[in-house]
């Protein structure tokens, strides 16, 4: 009995083990709670601001109306926006009727010759002819109708009484017309916005495929989308976003394909967005994403209308924001980030091979330095002897462990890349020479890094360039460093843990309810034809299962 007891006691771990057990518990709790509080802080921030603003805006909306008196109305407008140097008040006398009128507009936002010929000329000269038949102007309420119907040959024209509305229209580039005796203002639009021409998308170049890219003008972008093909099912809903500077945002979808629950969710998240200004669709992406703390992007940004349309046909939803050429596609899955529209334009065999190549490249971009570190500093016995010998010979004289060596080179490469983006174009190539050739060569000769590592890091960098989505490349670049740290501390075992950690994270991650790594897991065999493979087009009969579309079939 006593011997059994002593044997039992001998198996009780010593106090260091209990300490370690305590740490096992303590550290995750600290991490978990700090993450959770970070998360709730971000969430709270969002909701409190929203509440504050909703009370604020309710006060503003009850705007005052025009009094109906010509002089005082113009004076009112002058007080409100007359301080701006670019707001012009052009007063004139309407020919024939001899009544006063004022034209209010912002300089530079309209075509001046149109104002001259279509408004001023008509009102000052042509009206004279008209007045001979009429003798006197129509009475108050009929005057604006008369102007619209008989005098002003302008396509977009409306009556406005709300002062706030009026001020905003004027500042947005409309022309307001006041006439003595007319109770309201007439707002006409003759836009002359300077926009750049439609060019090839620079961030997503293709060898074969349409050369058209989105521009900064929302109406042009929606028109480009419409021009992709004739259908009555492409539906676009307009939202006004931004609390301070307002901008238009369009949600585009195929109304008979998209899953209605998904659409509802997207619309709900968009209407919940709260920000004073939306400078780029990246703002939208960050405000509607599911997981703020994930390194993976949960919306795909693209400049290519063809990409947007094919995503819409898969049952996804596009979000276009005024002022940026980048449209946003949601929900996004991991495989989308490694696809290029060209996969579909080329024949299926090269498309498939290229796609497999990209998956391999993505894997390498993530894992290559970690594998190098774990092989060199932990398990040189696992690689072929000749290779191990040649690597170790090359590393002789390198004063750092493989992890530090790898970090030095990888970080300097990141700096190089960052510098290359910011530099003016003519200096760019010089940068490549200085950074790539001279530093690489010199650091090897100086014995700071081994030539084999230079190969590995360069290979990794090129691999990450081959990923079609720039932002996905950034994610992999960040995670690569995490992988290097794992490999540096726990070798191959650490690398496996790192892989499992990423797998765990990816399976937990969702983009608008779609698991991020569908169709690999949850396993959807029907969607595998567009994953590693790009099946021949006749085989792609169905839309992706994961989108739970209304129409399953792609063909009639």
């Amino acid at each position: 009995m006593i011997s059994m007891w002593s044997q039992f006691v001998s198996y009780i771990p010593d106090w260091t083990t209990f300490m370690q057990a305590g740490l096992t518990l303590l550290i995750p709790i600290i991490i978990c709670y700090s993450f959770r509080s970070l998360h709730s802080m971000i969430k709270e921030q969002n909701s409190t601001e929203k509440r504050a603003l909703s009370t604020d805006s309710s006060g503003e909306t009850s705007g005052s109306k025009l009094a109906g008196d010509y002089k005082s109305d113009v004076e009112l407008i002058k007080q409100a926006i007359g301080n701006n140097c670019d707001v012009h008040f052009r007063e004139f006398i309407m020919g024939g009727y001899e009544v006063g009128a004022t034209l209010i507009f912002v300089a530079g936002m309209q075509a001046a010759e149109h104002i001259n010929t279509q408004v001023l000329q008509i009102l000052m000269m042509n009206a004279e002819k008209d007045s001979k038949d009429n003798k006197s102007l129509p009475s108050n309420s009929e005057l604006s109708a008369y102007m619209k119907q008989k005098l002003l040959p302008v396509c977009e024209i409306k009556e406005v009484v709300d002062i706030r509305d009026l001020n905003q229209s004027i500042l947005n580039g409309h022309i307001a017309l006041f006439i003595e005796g007319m109770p309201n203002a007439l707002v006409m639009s003759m836009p002359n916005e300077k926009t750049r021409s439609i060019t090839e998308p620079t961030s997503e170049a293709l060898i074969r495929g349409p050369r058209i890219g989105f521009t900064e003008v929302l109406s042009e972008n929606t028109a480009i989308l419409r021009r992709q093909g004739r259908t009555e099912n492409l539906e676009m809903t307009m939202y006004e976003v931004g609390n301070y500077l307002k901008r238009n945002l369009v949600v585009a979808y195929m109304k008979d394909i998209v899953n209605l629950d998904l659409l509802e969710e997207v619309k709900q998240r968009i209407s919940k967005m709260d920000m004073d200004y939306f400078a780029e669709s990246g703002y939208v992406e960050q405000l509607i994403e599911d997981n703020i703390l994930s390194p993976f992007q949960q919306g795909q940004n693209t400049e290519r209308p063809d990409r947007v349309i094919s995503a819409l046909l898969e049952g996804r939803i596009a979000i276009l924001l005024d002022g940026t050429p980048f449209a946003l596609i949601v929900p996004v899955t991991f495989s989308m980030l490694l696809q290029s529209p060209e996969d579909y334009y080329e024949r299926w065999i090269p498309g498939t091979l290229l796609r497999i190549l990209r998956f391999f490249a993505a894997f390498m971009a993530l894992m290559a330095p970690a594998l190098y570190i774990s092989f060199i500093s932990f398990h040189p016995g696992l690689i072929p002897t000749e290779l191990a010998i040649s690597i170790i010979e090359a590393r002789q004289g390198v004063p750092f462990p493989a992890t530090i060596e790898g970090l030095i080179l990888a970080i300097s490469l990141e700096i190089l890349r960052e510098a290359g983006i910011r530099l003016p174009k003519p200096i760019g190539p010089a940068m490549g020479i200085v950074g790539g050739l001279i530093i690489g060569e010199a650091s090897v000769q100086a014995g700071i890094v081994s030539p084999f590592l230079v190969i590995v890091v360069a290979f990794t960098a090129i691999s990450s360039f081959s990923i079609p989505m720039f932002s996905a490349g950034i994610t992999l670049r960040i995670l690569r460093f995490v992988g290097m740290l794992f490999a540096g501390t726990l070798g191959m075992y650490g690398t496996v843990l790192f892989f499992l950690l990423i797998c765990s994270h990816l399976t937990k991650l969702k983009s608008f309810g779609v698991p991020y790594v569908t169709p690999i897991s949850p396993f959807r065999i029907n969607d595998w034809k567009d994953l590693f493979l790009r099946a021949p087009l006749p085989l792609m009969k169905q839309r992706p299962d994961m989108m739970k579309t209304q129409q399953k079939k792609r063909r009639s």
Partner: protein
Amino acid sequence: MFIRSDDKISTSQTSIFLTNTVLGAGILTLPRSVTNVVQTPDAWISVLLGGVMIILLAILMVKLSQQFPSNTVFQYSKRIVGTIPAAVLCLLLIIYFIIIAGFEARVMAEVTLFYLLEGTPVWAIIISFIWVGAYLIFGGINSIARVYQIVFPISILILLLSYFLSVRIFDIDHLRPFLGEGILPVIKGLKSTILIFTGFEVIMNLVAHMQHPEQAVKAVVTGISIPIVLYLLTVVMVIGGLSTDGVLRSTWPTLDLLRSFEVAGLFFERFEFPFLVIWLMQMFCNFISFYFNASLGISQVFGLKAPSVFFGLMPLIFLTSMIPKRINDVFNLGDAIGVMGIIMFVLIPGMLSVIYIIRKKGLKQDV
């Protein structure tokens, strides 16, 4: 519904869950532990027979669980035998799961120490393992099943490839004579083959989480057939490659098999490296299953919130895994787990079904 809120898994996910729960440490140790008992090359027959028995037992468990839709064993046991006896039974099952989880973590650490990370402290390996596992477990059964779906095809591919490559040192003579000493050694071997299937008890919890519980039998049969085939292949290839004497001499016979030939022209010299990688992932899955089921049990029996249970189990599993002092203690613990498995089986599905049948059929009670 587009965004799913229910935490259910599909039938194929259940199969893979079961496969990944069963397929673990056994791949490395099975050939030795079975051959040790059988002492003849007929160990593979034991594996086959043992596997078939396990399938039958698992089907019994499924049938029992199907009587209580969307209830786990931790919930329905009290409806059969009453609150207090059920609590005792569930507690036993929970302890059993915790011990297995600790055991798996320790075996993983031992192999890692031996082959990959000489000199690294055991606790560093086990703690990092537990942490990554805990991160996944917070995602619930759905995330776990999805990780299994990623790991499973990779494991199977590498596993089959490594056995395929070891065909070159396979010698059919090592498997002869067939039944040279009669059927008796084979029967003796059954005990140790049943042990390697420990963990299939989780099916009693999985049925409750299935989207289509009526397909549970199908899921179980496929989910256990896959490990049977793989274990069978392991035993046949390892004994065929190393002979019974060779198997008995080595600690991790399967790895020794893969170390005994070289693959030329690849980035790694021997196939032991990819094998170890997938084995580590497989052990992770294995560990997760028990960790998850233990925490499920605790939270259901004691009515605790899941996250606090996940946290609370971390040090517990760590301590369990640190109890064995030497590698022999680890193997003894493995054998003890096997015995516990049999006791568990007799107590939980065995006794529960008998009582259930008596109450339902004999006493006409409404359970």
